């Protein structure tokens, strides 16, 4: 007799439905799993056997074949244990087939029959098109986020078998925890003293989705500014929140409070982190990296020049396409990687750079430092600004700095305007559409021409400049035409890299 149970397996951050077919027939006792199971999956045999026996359920002494369909797709992990066990029970006649129709089963089995959590429950459940789903008790909240299924908790194989056989009811679901208040610490823009230029850069970056490079001496508030960026970005909509949760789930990270997040994620990997942890991959089960965890949020790379060149190079594809392809010998995978990049760097190794020749570095050292950040990478940053340490006057005096809410409101309006143009944000405006959506008025055109002639703006930088100017005009509520003021501001926020890093001291 053949039993078919619905389950799912994880590929990257996406789940794929798997139909577990269990065939029990006469013949010498054997148990084979086919359908490209990986090592952990093949070990299901032993776990399922022990779990069944521990649960006082029958283990068939016959010839058993388990097929994990579709057979061409590699199945990874132990999440199919529960489905296989239930399939065995159905094939042995212990459970009626109709009881399992319309339900998906996900979970790993312990030798004592307990049902254990597996990473990626959210994408796995999202891949199932059944009416209901049975998941480990600890993953119930995560599974409920998808919203399409009737979710049942399973603590042990015995409970599942009893419920399916009609001997007992399903265990009740745990109480949802009350949603805690959003953490307001490290979110207040008004806490940043001085830094008018830096604060404005953060606002423009958020409003238009422009990648921003902050260059300045230690203690100039680069990290502070970067941490406030997610708070001025608009909150995640449902699709984006689900994507963020799927990636977190696939990475094995806990979902806070079991609710969908509203604030964009903020990831700040250290420059000593390995390339794999940053980009994603790994042998065997491929896990998403930091850049995927930052999708729909902010990726902050402090000390940009200290990251290995290979890692910085690996960023180019995600920055261009919004995804990262990770290929290994056995399999390849595509993870989402659409983030707002914030880079921070010192102007030179001693950190001072700039004013009055305070820099203690030799020209050769400065050149080496500047060479670490390649031209193409620096070109990706739409905004490149110099931040300074706040003066004593600014630190001590009472200043009315704008609070986060005010900035966030303007950013939200600017984002709305971008959506009306058919893009997620102004940074996504295609080059061909710039003439239509970002026309320049006479004064702006004159300013631009002068700069082009002087070589201060390159032809490639021109498009980026116009997008930034468009965002600035949106923030000012200026209407269709981009004016001289907006273009000048865009130029001021976009310092040529060779003058910013390792370049001439003032």
């Amino acid at each position, binding site marked *: 007799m053949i039993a078919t149970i619905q389950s799912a397996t994880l590929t990257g951050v996406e789940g794929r439905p798997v139909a577990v077919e269990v065939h029990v027939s006469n013949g010498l006792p054997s148990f084979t799993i086919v359908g490209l199971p990986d090592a952990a999956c093949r070990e299901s045999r032993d776990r399922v056997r022990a779990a069944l026996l521990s649960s006082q359920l029958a283990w068939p002494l016959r010839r058993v074949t388990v097929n994990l369909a579709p057979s061409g797709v590699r199945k990874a992990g132990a999440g199919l244990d529960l489905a296989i066990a239930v399939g065995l029970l159905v094939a042995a006649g212990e459970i009626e087939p109709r009881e399992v129709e319309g339900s998906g089963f996900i979970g790993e089995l312990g030798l004592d029959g307990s049902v254990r959590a597996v990473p990626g429950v959210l994408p796995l459940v999202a891949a199932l098109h059944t009416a209901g789903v049975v998941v480990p008790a600890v993953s119930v909240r995560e599974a409920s986020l998808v919203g399409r299924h009737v979710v049942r908790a399973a603590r042990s194989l015995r409970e599942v078998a009893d419920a399916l056989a009609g001997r007992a009811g399903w265990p009740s679901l745990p109480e949802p925890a009350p949603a805690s208040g959003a953490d307001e610490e490290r979110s207040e823009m008004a806490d940043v003293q001085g830094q008018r230029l830096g604060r404005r850069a953060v606002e423009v970056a958020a409003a238009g989705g422009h990648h921003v490079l902050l260059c300045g001496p230690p203690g100039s508030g680069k990290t502070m500014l970067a941490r406030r960026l997610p708070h001025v970005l608009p909150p995640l909509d449902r699709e984006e929140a689900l994507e963020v949760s799927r990636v977190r789930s696939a990475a094995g990270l806990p979902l806070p409070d079991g609710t969908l997040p509203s604030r964009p994620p903020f990831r700040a990997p250290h420059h000593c982190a390995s390339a794999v942890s940053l980009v994603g991959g790994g042998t065997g089960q491929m896990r998403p990296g930091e850049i995927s965890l930052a999708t729909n949020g902010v990726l902050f790379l402090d000390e940009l020049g200290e990251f290995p060149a290979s890692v910085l190079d690996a960023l180019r594809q995600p920055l261009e396409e919004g995804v990262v392809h990770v290929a290994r010998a056995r399999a390849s995978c595509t993870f989402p990687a659409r983030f707002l990049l914030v880079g921070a760097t010192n102007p030179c190794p001693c950190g001072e750079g700039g004013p009055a020749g305070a820099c*203690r*570095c030799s*020209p050769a050292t400065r050149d080496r430092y500047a060479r670490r950040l390649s031209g193409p990478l620096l070109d990706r940053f739409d905004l490149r600004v110099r931040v300074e340490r706040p003066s004593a006057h600014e630190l001590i005096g009472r200043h009315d700095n704008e609070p986060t809410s005010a900035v966030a409101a303007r950013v939200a309006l600017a984002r709305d305007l971008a959506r009306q143009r058919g893009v997620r944000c102004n940074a996504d405006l295609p080059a061909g559409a710039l003439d239509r959506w970002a026309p320049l008025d006479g004064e702006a055109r004159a300013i631009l021409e*002068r700069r082009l002639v002087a070589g201060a703006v390159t032809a490639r930088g021109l498009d980026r400049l116009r997008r930034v100017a468009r965002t600035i005009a949106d923030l000012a509520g200026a209407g269709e035409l981009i004016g001289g003021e907006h273009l000048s501001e865009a130029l*001021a926020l976009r310092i040529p890299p060779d003058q910013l890093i390792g370049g001439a001291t*003032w």
Partner: protein
Amino acid sequence: MVTAARAAAVTVASLPAMTPQRLAKLSRVAGRSAPAAGWAGVLDDLRRGGEAALHLARAALGGRPDADGGGRSQRLARRWSAAARSVEPEAVAAAYDAAGVRVLLPGDDAYPAALAADQEAPAVLFCRGAAAGPGPCAVAVVGTRSATHYGKEVAAELGAVLAAHGVSVVSGLAAGIDAAAHEGALAPDAGAGGPPVAVVGAGLDVVYPAATARLRERIEAVGTVLSEAPLGASPEPWRFPLRNRVIAALSQLVVVVESHRAGGALHTVESALARGIEVMAVPGSIRSPASAGTNWLIASGAQVVTSPDDVLVALGRKTVAAPSGSAAASPLPHLELTPAERGVLAAVESTPVSTQEILERTERPLGEVALALDRLDAAGLVRDCGGAWVLRSPRSPRRDG
């Protein structure tokens, strides 16, 4: 390359493990009176190897009895012999011709007169460019590679004024002050001056630093680039003090624009003082490390440069200097400026002020300030230093971008 003898000189100069000092000692063996002919003999000896080469190696190393019983000179002799045998002087000479490099030996008409009389004259000098050396009046303008905007502006002004008075500007083609001085001397409105001369430490085919490649071409077009190093020699650190002595020896006056408390420019100063050449220095802010060396020079007795005229007076080209402070910028009063622009202009100084700082001083939004700065830039009143702005001095050559 006219004769085989000159080819021999070039070949010897291009041998591995050859330095200007060793070359000078060999040239004494070759005979100062007929240097070209003597080189052919030197090359033959080296090729022959054995005692003849050993004798030359000992002479090159200073003629002192070797501490390790002659091992060093033997190794050197072997090395030179092997290298000398593996090249054809004609091929070497052809390579230099192909690169457009001329060879100057003491005694040649083209050999710079100022060097001919020098105690440590280069035994073999390579040059490339329209001229062979400086004009009758030459001034060295040197300084640190980590120069500030102030230093570069002063160096450029100095270069321009000197060139306008027919003086040859001599410098080292390093980043910072050296490059700025020659940029000023070559500026289109500087007038036809004496040929600019750059002296470099590496071989003439090695472009170092890379950023000065274009400047080097422009100097070669009207002046000359000199080097004691053979083609292909890399800019090793020990070549630079040697090059600095050549800069000093070529000049009637050495002006240091900016220098840290320790730096290559100070070595040029030493070489100048040893030759009785006058040294002048430009003062700077006591808070600026880039002026620590020049301020120290002034305190030690160097003449002060408060305007380019001071240099002209020291040369005897002018009798009265313009009053000091006239090099400071003053805004042209006849332009119409809006109140916003006046406010922004007032926030800019003659040393660079960051955009951030200007925002704080004016307390206006970035868009307004940026637009005002752009208009002031277009009017020629301020200059963009990349994140900072500075008042444009009326005499500084207009370098846009």
